[in-house]
């Protein structure tokens, strides 16, 4: 049965005020004046019929006035009725996940900080908690960390909320949901509720996070989704950077490449990008992106303004894009390598009657002077034995039958050290060797042997992933041919797992370019053995794209640490003393050093909490600087459909789409449905009826 109660019972002391109309009525009757009047005979004639009617109306008016005062007093006493659902009358265990990820630093549709809205909602939950309720506050970025607060003390919870701030970390929604479920399952209270206060970014709800919703529904936990935004707010972000400076157009100057993405349903405005070296502006450019497009933007650099004495300078640069809804991802910190060239070791086998064709070498370094940004050395497979990471960035194996065991071991060591690999097959390559021996552990690709096109037929090269780095120099769309040239033979291949990316394929769907981090495989010939590809305009950008992609294996290493990870630096020699790491906002941590291949790896003990530069010091001098950036996971502000989450979290879940909806929900479930407004309206209605009766009487009079 519903329970009726008053939230301000003190006002009930004013209930006797309701007797005022009755008292006034009685007093006025007792003190009636006597008026001599000659024609009372007419009044007497009226009295029996009229007076009875008037008395009735008088009583009705009296009741209405009394009722109006009564209702008014009751309205001030804030009457409430608890719902029939008896669970809400009992104490409840609540887990409140507060999304404090980087995206919450953004603005909502009303240009209000998202975190502000989240704290406001969380505070409403804390304030609505009743004695006996238990509440666990869980940070979505550090669900197992210090931000988790389990208490029934409202003051402490409120203080904890006050200290809650946006982190630069990506949300760990799966971890947060797991922590919430466990906290609720530990509670003895039967009524269990999970509130998820978040911007409900689609990118936060991966398969793992969604999988956590099932057990929550099974544990009889009601889930309330409390979104702080309703729609996707446009946002652009710097998502990647090529740390290697490349020669500029026509071999002049230097340029830096940054990848920028437009996470929006509409094309972006022109986005200006600036490169700063210290306080000096050293380069920049601008880019306009289509909806949901990401693109590499090349920015010419001019070091003269930076105070550096030569174009060979390198160091820490900050790349900034125009600020938008989410500011942290509009900046990218980078420590550039020495500007120069990619060093490529091309491994070929001599052919009968002469050396192997040099099409790929010519595509990479036509002048043999390195001005194209590539320096190519050519060796036979035996030359692999002298391979080290310090001498080469990328190894390109082209139409080699197979490698010796020693050569293969050296290659694998090179790859472990961060080297890149390009494998181009051909009529001389042994598919059995590559498919069964070399590729395992490098790329999950199986080979089924060479296949020649039927007489008169050929294979067309069609882009499957047009935005892939391999195709960076080619302006193609999905399914578009890269070139007019055709291939007459291919090495039939299949991906063994989902990890390899097929970037280019034939019209019939046979893979032609497959990649894995640091590894690119061209499944046909880069010479004219199987077609006329080397003579096409797409050949040079394709070969350079394959090598550049493979070279990024090094860029994916310690230099691109994300917030939340421990900063790590590769050292060429062991440090002489203990290594300390210093970063933004007084970050200080010790670092542990261990050998890694021929080099050493120093890794801070504490994770980075802010993007910026982290300086590794030993013996009072800087030995390495690494850049830490925010995760690109948080940049796409697209909102997941709450219905899809509700469907996964069972029938007991609901969405509280606004602060008002949350307030209404809390009012109904915690304090009961407040009826003051109803009472006020009833009082007004009683007064209105009283006025109507009164005015009807006056009109009649």
């Amino acid at each position: 049965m519903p329970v009726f109660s008053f939230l301000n019972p003190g006002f009930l002391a004013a209930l006797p005020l309701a007797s005022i109309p009755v008292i006034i009525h009685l007093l006025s009757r007792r003190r009636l004046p006597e008026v001599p009047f000659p024609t009372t005979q007419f009044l007497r004639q009226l009295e029996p019929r009229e007076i009875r009617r008037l008395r009735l109306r008088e009583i009705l008016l009296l009741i209405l006035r009394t009722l109006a005062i009564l209702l008014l007093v009751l309205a001030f006493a804030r009457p409430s009725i608890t719902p029939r659902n008896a669970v809400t009358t009992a104490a409840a265990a609540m887990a409140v996940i507060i999304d404090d990820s980087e995206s919450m630093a953004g603005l909502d549709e009303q240009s209000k900080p998202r975190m502000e809205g989240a704290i406001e909602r969380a505070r409403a939950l804390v304030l609505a908690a009743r004695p006996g309720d238990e509440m666990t506050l869980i940070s979505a970025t550090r669900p197992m960390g210090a931000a988790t607060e389990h208490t029934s003390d409202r003051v402490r919870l409120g203080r904890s909320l006050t200290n809650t701030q946006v982190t630069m970390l990506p949300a760990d929604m799966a971890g947060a949901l797991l922590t919430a479920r466990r906290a609720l399952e530990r509670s003895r209270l039967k009524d269990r509720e999970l509130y998820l206060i978040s911007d409900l970014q689609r990118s936060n709800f991966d398969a793992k996070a969604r999988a956590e919703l099932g057990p929550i529904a099974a544990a009889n936990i009601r889930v309330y989704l409390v979104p702080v935004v309703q729609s996707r707010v446009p946002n652009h972000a710097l998502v990647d950077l090529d740390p290697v400076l490349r020669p500029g157009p026509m071999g002049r100057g230097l340029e830096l490449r940054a990848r920028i993405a437009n996470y929006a349903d509409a094309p972006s405005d022109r986005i200006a990008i600036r490169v700063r070296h210290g306080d000096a502006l050293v380069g920049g450019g601008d880019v306009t992106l289509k909806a949901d497009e990401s693109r590499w933007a090349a920015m010419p650099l001019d070091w003269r303004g930076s105070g550096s004495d030569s174009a060979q300078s390198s160091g820490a640069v900050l790349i900034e894009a125009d600020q938008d809804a989410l500011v942290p991802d509009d900046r990218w910190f980078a420590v550039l390598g020495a500007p120069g060239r990619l060093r490529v070791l091309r491994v070929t086998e001599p052919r009968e009657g002469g050396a192997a064709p040099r099409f790929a070498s010519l595509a990479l370094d036509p002048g043999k002077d390195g001005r194209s940004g590539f320096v190519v050395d050519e060796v036979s497979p035996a030359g692999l034995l002298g391979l080290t990471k310090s001498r080469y960035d990328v190894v390109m194996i082209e139409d080699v039958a197979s490698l010796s065991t020693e050569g293969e071991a050296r290659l694998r060591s090179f790859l472990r050290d961060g080297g890149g690999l390009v494998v181009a097959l051909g009529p001389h390559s042994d598919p059995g060797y590559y498919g069964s021996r070399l590729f395992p552990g490098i790329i999950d690709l199986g080979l089924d042997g060479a296949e020649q096109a039927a007489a008169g037929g050929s294979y067309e090269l069609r882009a499957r992933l047009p935005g892939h780095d391999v195709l960076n120099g080619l302006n193609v769309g999905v399914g578009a041919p890269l070139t007019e040239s055709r291939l007459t033979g291919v090495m039939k291949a299949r991906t063994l797992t989902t990890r390899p990316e097929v970037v280019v394929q034939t019209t019939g769907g046979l893979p032609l370019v497959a990649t894995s981090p640091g590894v690119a495989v061209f499944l046909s010939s880069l010479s004219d053995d199987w077609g006329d590809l080397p003579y096409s305009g797409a050949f040079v950008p394709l070969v350079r794209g394959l090598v550049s992609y493979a070279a990024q294996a090094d860029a994916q290493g310690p230099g691109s640490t994300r917030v939340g990870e421990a900063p790590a630096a590769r050292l060429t020699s062991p440090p002489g003393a203990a290594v300390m790491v210093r970063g933004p906002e007084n970050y200080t941590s010790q670092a542990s050093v261990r050998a890694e291949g021929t080099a050493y790896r120093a890794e801070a003990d504490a994770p980075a909490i802010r993007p910026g530069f982290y300086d590794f010091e030993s013996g009072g001098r800087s030995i390495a600087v690494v850049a830490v950036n925010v995760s690109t996971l948080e940049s796409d502000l697209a909102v997941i459909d709450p219905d899809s989450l509700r469907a996964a979290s069972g029938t007991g879940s609901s969405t509280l789409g606004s602060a008002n909806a949350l307030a209404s929900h809390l009012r109904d479930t915690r304090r009961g449905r407040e009826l003051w407004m109803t009472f006020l309206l009833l009082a007004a209605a009683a007064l209105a009826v009283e006025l109507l009766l009164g005015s009807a009487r006056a009109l009649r009079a």
Partner: protein
Amino acid sequence: MSERRPRLLDPHFVSKLTRLDLTARLVVEGFLTGLHRSPYHGFSVEFAEHRQYMPGDPLRHLDWRVLAKSDRKYIKQYEEETNLRAMLLVDTSASMGYGSHGVTKLDYARQLAASLAYLMLRQNDAVGMFAFATGRAELIPPRSTLGHARPLLLLLERLTPGGATDFTSSLHSLAERMTRRGLVILISDLLDEPERIAQAIHHFRHRKHEVLVFHVLDPQEVAFDFEREAVYVDLESGERVTTRPQELRPDYRARVSAWRDQIRQFCIEKRAEYVPLTTDQPYDRALLEYLSKRARLL
């Protein structure tokens, strides 16, 4: 003069004067002065002038007194010889003592009767008076001398409200006693059974008298404009009615109006003149009604 006239005929103004003979004269003089400028000019109500007798003039208009004194034949213009006998019936019941704005109905009736008497005597009419209420009645037989005004005014000044309105015994006995045909002017609030009033009027009419009824009511009796809830005590019966005026006002007014219409109706049926008056109205209306009636009679 035009400014004085309404003052002289205003009951409030008149009520402040103590001498009834003076006030009656003031009322009548004021009335007559205004009358010369009114559409009623031409009424032969006062002596105007003599002119020499010309052959062809009716001999009845010859002023015999002048002829007797001076042996000259003059025609007396606008002065008429009459044998009209009027009886003023003034109700002195307790209800006539009611006045909501300083003038009681009896005050009004007293002044009206005095004015009428003065006017009649000025026109050489014979005027009598009958003041009545339950258990008391005073009669002054009609005479036409100017000196007759004094006893009439003395009686009027002596009147006090008391007793119930009694049409049955008082008026029927008076009707029996009035042998000569004449004009009966009834000044009353008529707070008796309508049937009794009708019977009384019928009785006078049966005796060939002309009847003029001045129905005098206080404005409050007509409008019932009280605001507060109160106990209303009947002046004659002492009965008490507790009510809220604003609630009953519409019905009350309707009933009073119906009551007056009923009286008017039976007056019409009995061929009596009915003049409703309220004590805030000037006296000229009543005087005009009288003159109009007199003109029809002569």
